[in-house]
């Protein structure tokens, strides 16, 4: 099968994952070509942050209201930036397309531009893999990147058939400690367990490649949830809204405290 891996990497972590996936696909007997998306002007990290800072306030509301979060994900606008000319401006000759990027709060601006610019996406089956700082949090990481990406691909006539998101263990803005804490709180595991080279990463890389080749799954229908990690830990925290979390605490309280007390009586 003829596969194109299109990647955009700012700090190098996504390129590393792209290489690992390419090697896996080649070992499965497929032909892989590459497309590196680069900005015309290299941007310092702080101005890059300002570009998406508008969304941070919206993220804050999303933590309180599930309805607003749904609305935000379905409607948010991504600013575009100029990219260097593409090596493969028409991808119609490929059987599968793989897009790889980091997550810059939302879908990166370069990917937004690429998805508008590239030709021949119609009826193509696409896989999307990404590296981000945190663990695979359902609402913050997985949903914020893959659902808008799936929407955009659908508008171009393509179908997202496989997704993968792994932790790069690196954050450019020095807030890695927050994600380490979230990983402990939400999953009860160190964030290293969700990194590119962890068992979780290796397992999911293989799964990603298999699903990409099979091309039967429709991520849009499963709303991008499927690949989020659903393990032990303190459920609800950092993945749900405050109200959902409070409801959950109430349910647990009734289950373990109130009913337990009744049984004692």
């Amino acid at each position, binding site marked *: 099968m003829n596969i194109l891996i299109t990647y955009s990497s700012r*700090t*190098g972590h996504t*390129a*590393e994952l*792209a*290489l690992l996936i*390419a*090697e896996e696909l*080649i070992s499965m007997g497929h032909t*892989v*070509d*590459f*497309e*590196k998306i680069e900005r015309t002007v290299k941007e*310092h*990290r*702080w*101005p890059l*942050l*300002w570009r998406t*800072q*508008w969304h*941070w*306030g*919206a993220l*804050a*509301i999303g933590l*309180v*209201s599930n*309805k*607003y979060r749904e*609305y935000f994900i379905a409607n948010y606008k991504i600013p575009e930036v100029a990219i260097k*000319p593409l*090596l*493969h401006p*028409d991808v119609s000759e490929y059987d599968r397309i793989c897009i790889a990027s980091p997550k810059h709060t939302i879908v990166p601006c370069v990917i937004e531009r690429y998805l508008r610019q590239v030709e021949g996406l119609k009826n193509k089956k696409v896989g999307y893999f990404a590296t981000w700082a945190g663990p695979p949090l359902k609402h913050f990481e997985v949903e914020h990147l893959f659902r808008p990406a799936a929407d955009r691909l659908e508008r171009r006539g393509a179908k997202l058939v496989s997704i993968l998101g792994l932790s790069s*263990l*690196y*954050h*450019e*803005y*020095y*807030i*890695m*400690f927050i994600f380490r804490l979230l990983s402990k709180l939400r999953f009860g595991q160190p964030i290293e367990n969700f990194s590119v080279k962890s068992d979780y990463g290796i397992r999911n890389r293989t799964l990603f490649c298999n699903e990409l080749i099979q091309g039967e799954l429709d991520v849009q229908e499963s709303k991008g949830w499927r690949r989020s990690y659903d393990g032990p830990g303190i459920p609800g925290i950092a993945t749900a809204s405050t109200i959902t979390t409070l409801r959950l605490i109430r349910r647990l309280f009734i289950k373990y405290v109130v009913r337990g007390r009744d049984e004692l009586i």
Partner: protein
Amino acid sequence: METLQASGKKEFTINDLRLEVETWQKQKPQNKNIFIFFKSPIKDPPDFFGFLISFIILALTLVFVPVFEIVRLLILRPALTLFHTTMVIIGAALLRILAKPLIHIGNKAIENKQRGIYKFIYKKGFPAFLQFFNLCFGFSLKYYLKIDTKDVRSIGKFQEWIDDSCGVEGKWIESDVNRSVRHETWCPFVGREIPYVSPAGQNSPAPNGIENPDYSEFCSYFMRYWIQNFIKSCNPEFELAPLTCMIPKGDECCEFVYKRKKPWEGGEKS
């Protein structure tokens, strides 16, 4: 491949990617602590000022973006706003808190029917309160419950909301666009805050020397006036019929009949 050669661009192979990753691994960026900026602003001024500006922008966006978004949504998508959701939650909470005191006040007024307090509460107090309630929460409820004002069953969602908030159980017996009937089969207040009158007519002991105080008067007045007020604000063509069957009177259920004032005469709906 041909297109690449034609455009004169060099192909990017897996070996190029391998080389890129190997080079990157030698100078892999390391995580730093956020407090590094406060310690050495002179060492890396662009980084320090970048951080400072980002922090200011972040603080401003965290305050102004929610305000802006709420205002924008209020104009564009009122049904989805936090405002309406918040109002409905506040309304439900108020309902839960105020239900018992209101019933208590209503019952006290019934027990002192000959005094002026009864007239004051039932003629002025409750109407003013219910009008104020509908003024505050009616608009949000209409959007939040997605009420179709041409369908009387849809308007009945308001009563469902009251029931859900207070813990009353009921079901719809008839669900028509022009006539709907709801039976409230269980009420948490009857037998507690609202004394229950047995079908045999044996009433609870009469307080203040009044014989057989009709405690169901509170419901028949308060609920009807409240729902009637809401119906009026949605569609004046509909009304709630006076309550005849009531649990406090000894009936099996409270019957609420929503109907069109003038019977539908057929033809195309307006």
